[in-house]
């Protein structure tokens, strides 16, 4: 079993949720998403982000706005649609359930280990 594989699988599962969470807070520029996530301790490559955003946009969960920039061509800023909000709400529920479950399981596991010791 490849540890890296498992780790990346774990990260992959929450990636969309995290991105949506960042966008939900307000209109953002993709590189800002990367920065925000990096600050929170979750590394993501911009090359991964763009296709994800496009897919979410194509699924009508996101939309974007061209914003004039003071240097060079206008930039794409992403924001949430109503459908995206619903989607996010569902993901959030799932995440909470999952997090609780995982916490419970891992806590139990730790306790058992302690008891054994």
């Amino acid at each position, binding site marked *: 079993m490849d540890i890296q594989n498992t780790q990346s699988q774990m990260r992959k599962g929450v990636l969309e949720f995290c991105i949506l969470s960042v966008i939900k807070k307000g209109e953002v520029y993709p590189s800002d998403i990367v920065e925000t996530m990096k600050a929170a301790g979750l590394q993501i490559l911009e090359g991964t982000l763009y296709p994800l955003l496009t897919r979410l946009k194509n699924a009508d969960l996101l939309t974007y706005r061209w914003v004039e920039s003071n240097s060079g061509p206008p*930039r794409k800023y992403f924001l949430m649609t109503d459908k995206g909000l619903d989607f996010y709400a569902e993901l959030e529920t799932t995440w909470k359930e999952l997090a609780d479950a995982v916490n419970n399981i891992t806590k139990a596991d730790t306790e058992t280990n302690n008891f054994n010791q």
Partner: protein
Amino acid sequence: MKKVININFQGRVVPIEETAYEILKQYTESLNRFFANEEGKEEIINDIEGRIAELFAETLKKGSTCICDDDVERVINSMGRPEDFETEDPHYNQSQNNSSTQTESNSTTFAAPRGRLYRDENDKILGGVCGGLANYLRVDASVVRIVFAILTFGGGTGFFIYLLLWIFLPSKNLKTNLTKRLYRNPDEKVIGGVSSGLAAYFNIAVWIPRLIFAFPLVLGIGNSIFHNLFWDFDPFPSVFFGSFGGSLTLIYLVLWAVIPEANTASEKLEMRGEKIDLKTIKTTIQDDLVGFKERADKYGKEITEKVNKWGDEVNATASRSGNRIGHAIGIFFKAFFLFIAGMIAFALLMTLIGTLIGGVNFFPFKNFFLDGFWENTLAWATIIGFLIVPLVGFMIWIVRRFMKVKTKFRYFGATIGVIWTIGLFSCLTLVGIVLTNFKTKSAIEETISIQQPSNGKLLLTIQKDPISFYEDHWFGMNWDRNDAPFYGLNEDSIMLRTIRVSVIQSKDENYHMKLVKFSRGKDRDKARSVASNIQFNINQTDSVIILPKGFVITKNDKFRNQQVLVIIEVPVGKKIQLDNSLDDYEWFDLNYNRRKGWNADWDSNLSNSYSWDDDVELIMGEKELINPNKKKELSEDIEDLKKELQEIENKKKKLDKKKIELLKDSISNSVALIHNENIVDNYSSSKQSNVYVSSFLLDKFSF
């Protein structure tokens, strides 16, 4: 020192080092490949490129004069490489490491479902059927095309399958799902790297294509040298093997010419491309089997709907249905036209190959036809320009069409055309010259002095011993001797057997013998000089005259359709016997109507030349050769006897008729007589006369 170029990148002018530009280009290409089947590919790549351009702008703002390798590397690292996306992007599972070609990304299924079968609007030569199939099967379109071509020319089925698919499959702009191209592999090459390139393309061991190319080549070379070149007229196997091996060689050369060499790393990657291994094929087939019924049902429904729709349209509006049906008819016509054109092209190709093989067969004979430098040059120009070059050109054209590869040489077609035209003119000139060399026929006559046989009988036979310079089978001359005018060949000489023997009546009491040697040539003098070179030596031992097996033409004499007529004059009453070995000669026809120019006085007697039977003593009679021992055939005897029998029966019938008539007469006469007797001598015993009459009657009828 590095060269800096300015590029327009996402609406910004970016000064960039050339090497850095190469890296950037490769990176964007790798992105293109990675997102090839992604919906919204353009947008994603645009976004990424836009971001890169922004990062470049920031770098330049900080004071850099241009973008260097390190800058590009840094930006690429922050954007991530396609390999990295796979580990991060939830849409790419680890298990699908190589599946950058998925049409629809789906994280839950192991192998992504394929779309249905379409015709490919983007990748088409005729109707896009092959392109669509290739897309569906995830193989290169050229492979499918080659398979279809083989099916079409092999049995014709491919064409009909194609036609049906063309009509029933919907057309769609399909995105390519293959990143694989055929390259020559420069790292692993024996000759041109074609085999290893093919091996990489099909993901097979290198020795397989090598063996395929090499084996028939060796076979073909061996075959053509030992059979074609040296006169084995067994054309079908040699045409097959010769052309098969030969065309593989040609295919190799053509592939060598048109396939680009994989030089850069990205080209080498492209050369390997996606793995088409057994597993992929297996999953492909399994997918097919699972979904087959569903698909079949679905397609069946669709086709029914389609047909119904057509029907409705026919009923509803003539113009609208006209479009649909017109479309189908149009396709039919186009397909039919292409089919015919293809057949013609194929026939032409075959003719070309046939002529080429024929030319190879003819080749060792060249020296006996052609005279001098110019004629030989023309012959070479004909063979190369008129036959080989268009063949190679045609193949290159086909491969280019199939592989969609472009040669760098722009004037390819024009060059081929010019060379072919030169070849054509060479061919015509050569034919003209050769025909001139055969224009006039002339003959010389020689009288051969022979000893008069002591027993009044002459035996004519052919020398039985093999001729010293000729070795049987050595140059592959195991052909049927009775069919070939040429008896033997080595590098310097051929032996002709165009010899005819005529027997005519002698004007005096002696046997005489004459030779008439014919030849063709530019003019009469030339023809005669060639004819005089014919060596035809006759030996005599007492009553036996031995004729040679043939006469030898050397390379210097050239072949000018030389012929020898042997005339034997036999005095009346004397005998002659002709051995059946004379049948080995190739009898030629004497053209009586055109003998005017021939300086020969034998021709007045020629109409008196007689036919004969082999191996029997013949006696020269006053009018014809007589065979004293000639027996009638059994069937002839039966026929004659039947005729005789018929005649006899006819006579008998006539006689019978006469008899009956006579009988009638005699009866009436005798009755009258009896009557008279009765009158004269009434009493002279009527009993007796009755007995008399009856006995008379009995007499008459009992024969």
